[in-house]
């Protein structure tokens, strides 16, 4: 499903004219299969978030190929990237990234609005998903009126609303207590099994990583496959 070949990326740091290149990703090649839950684990600065940003199309790689299905996304323009994200990706962020001025319902509805779906079709679908994540009761609440766990559930519902085949989760439980963390991880596993969605989870947490089918370990811009809990 996701094939990455010789992916490299570096950042320029320092004052203008005296910049130097710092390599962040050093020729990564790996594959993620359809319907898999894959964790990419690493310490801060290992390059795991940069990898996610490049896979999602937020950043353009210096070199290398990313192929999702039959499409080479690494060659996309900004416009093509945005369209592809809307149709194929869902996102779960560490700090939820909900719109503060929109209710839970409106936040979940937003990607459908962007996709140009008609109002009556949106309503039904949003209600179904809010029921799935157990938030029907609070659908008219604004994010600041919800708990962290509830906010993350809204975020998951928003990620699912366009039926994307792939969901990128960047530290999905990073802002949650351990009990809520377990709830969210169980929800992810359940969605993976019932809907066949591919999850790519970026985390520094062994417990979270262990819930994945496969674990990649990132260190200093390089990637190795293997167990996490015992390997780190």
């Amino acid at each position, binding site marked *: 499903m996701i094939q990455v070949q010789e992916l490299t990326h570096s950042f320029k740091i320092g004052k203008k004219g005296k910049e130097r290149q710092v390599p962040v990703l050093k020729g990564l090649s790996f594959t993620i299969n359809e319907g898999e839950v894959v964790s990419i684990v690493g310490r801060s600065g290992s390059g795991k978030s940069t990898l996610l940003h490049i896979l999602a199309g937020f950043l353009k790689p210096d070199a290398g190929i990313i192929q999702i299905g039959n499409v080479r996304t690494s060659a996309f323009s900004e416009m093509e990237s945005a369209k592809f994200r809307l*149709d194929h990706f869902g*996102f779960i962020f560490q*700090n939820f990234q909900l719109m*503060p001025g929109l209710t839970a319902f409106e936040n979940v509805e937003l990607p459908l*609005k*962007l996709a140009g779906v008609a109002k009556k079709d949106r309503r039904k679908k949003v209600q179904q998903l809010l029921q799935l994540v157990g938030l029907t009761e609070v659908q008219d609440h604004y994010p600041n009126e919800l708990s962290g766990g509830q906010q993350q559930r809204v975020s998951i519902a928003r990620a699912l609303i*366009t039926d994307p085949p792939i969901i990128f989760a960047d530290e999905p439980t990073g802002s949650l207590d351990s009990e809520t963390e377990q709830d969210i991880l169980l929800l992810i596993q359940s969605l993976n099994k019932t809907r066949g969605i591919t999850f790519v989870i970026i985390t520094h947490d062994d417990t979270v990583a262990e819930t994945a089918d496969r674990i990649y370990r990132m260190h200093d811009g390089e990637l190795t496959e293997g167990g996490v809990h015992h390997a780190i």
Partner: protein
Amino acid sequence: MQFNDQIDFVRQHIKKNKLRVFMTILAATMGTAFLIVLASVGFGIHDTMRNEILDNRLVNQVEVYSSEMDQAKVEELKKREHVKAVVFRQSVSINQQTELDGFIGSHNMTVTEFQEEAKVGFALQEGRLPENKHEVVVGSHFAESLIESETEGAEAEPSTYKQSLIGKQFTYKMGLYEEKELFPEETTLTIVGIAKEPAKDWVMDTNIYADAAIMPELNRIFTGHVEDMDSQLFYGNVNVYADNLENVTAVSKALKDEGYSVYSIADQLEQLDVFFLAFKAGLVFVGTIAILIASIGIFNTMTMAVTERTREIGVMKAIGASPKLIQRLFLMESAWIGIVGTIIAVVISYGVSFIANLVLPIIVSTALGEEEFTSLDITFSIIPWQLVVIASAISITVAMISGWRPARKATKIDVIQALRQEL
């Protein structure tokens, strides 16, 4: 994203910053209203001056002067393209006296072709047009200028003719100004019609309008007393009337090209219109400066909106909003400010214009101490739909241009940086 959803999105953001948006709209309103009211003064003065020129004048009339004008030339002019009528009026250039039932007056005789006069609106208030050379039409003030011969020159208030003129005969005599006695020959004329009153109250029409057929008879009397071959009894002027206003310039130009001296009100109006076009353009330009000043407010508001919403824009881009959509949403917001500001400004401008036309004449007449001023038809401010369209186009365009840069800035927001922003 559907258009309705885009409108909803913009509306939600505007609701969040009501006060700031209100102040920006207020600035846009003031700028646009200033432009409209300022330019409306130009339109008002232009309209007043046009009306003043057109008042009681025929706009399709071209006055033609030629030292060698004669009936043959007039006939040639009648055959021209786009010429509706040619009126060749000739007036008697020497002293004249009329006498009717013991009432005496000094009336000028004008000979003309009534058929042509009728085509261009020569109308009677009473009677009919002459059918032979001794029948005449008199001006509407003819009777008032007939004074009873016994009271003439006396200190008492002169008595004027009060009876009906239709069907009355009067004697018409001519003479030279430098000689006391008039020529002894009398011509008896019958009044068959009275011309309609001139539109302007202060114009007195005491003329005698006779058919051109009487000219040989009067010329015979004149040449019997005046030996100077160069002197003429009649002097005339020719007015050519175009079939419609659009053809006045063409008719006028053709006559000029053939060596005639011409004057038409259309020429005067054209010059006036050119002057006022420049004048109004100048006023619109000055007014536009006010809108440009207001646009600084729109620019600031939109820049702040983009800065405040950086994280939201980042989230939208992350979940798949295209840069074009982001740009459109912000442009719609600035356009909305421009549109609402313009609508309010148009309403206010009409109000100000109405009040100005109502109050200014009173103020001016009070200041000048002229009571008559208020009765004059002076319009201080007119807002035609064209001015509303021009002002709206300028205002909304300037608002959108002001929002353009902030909107571009929004599209360039880096998703990763935006997502890292704290709530």
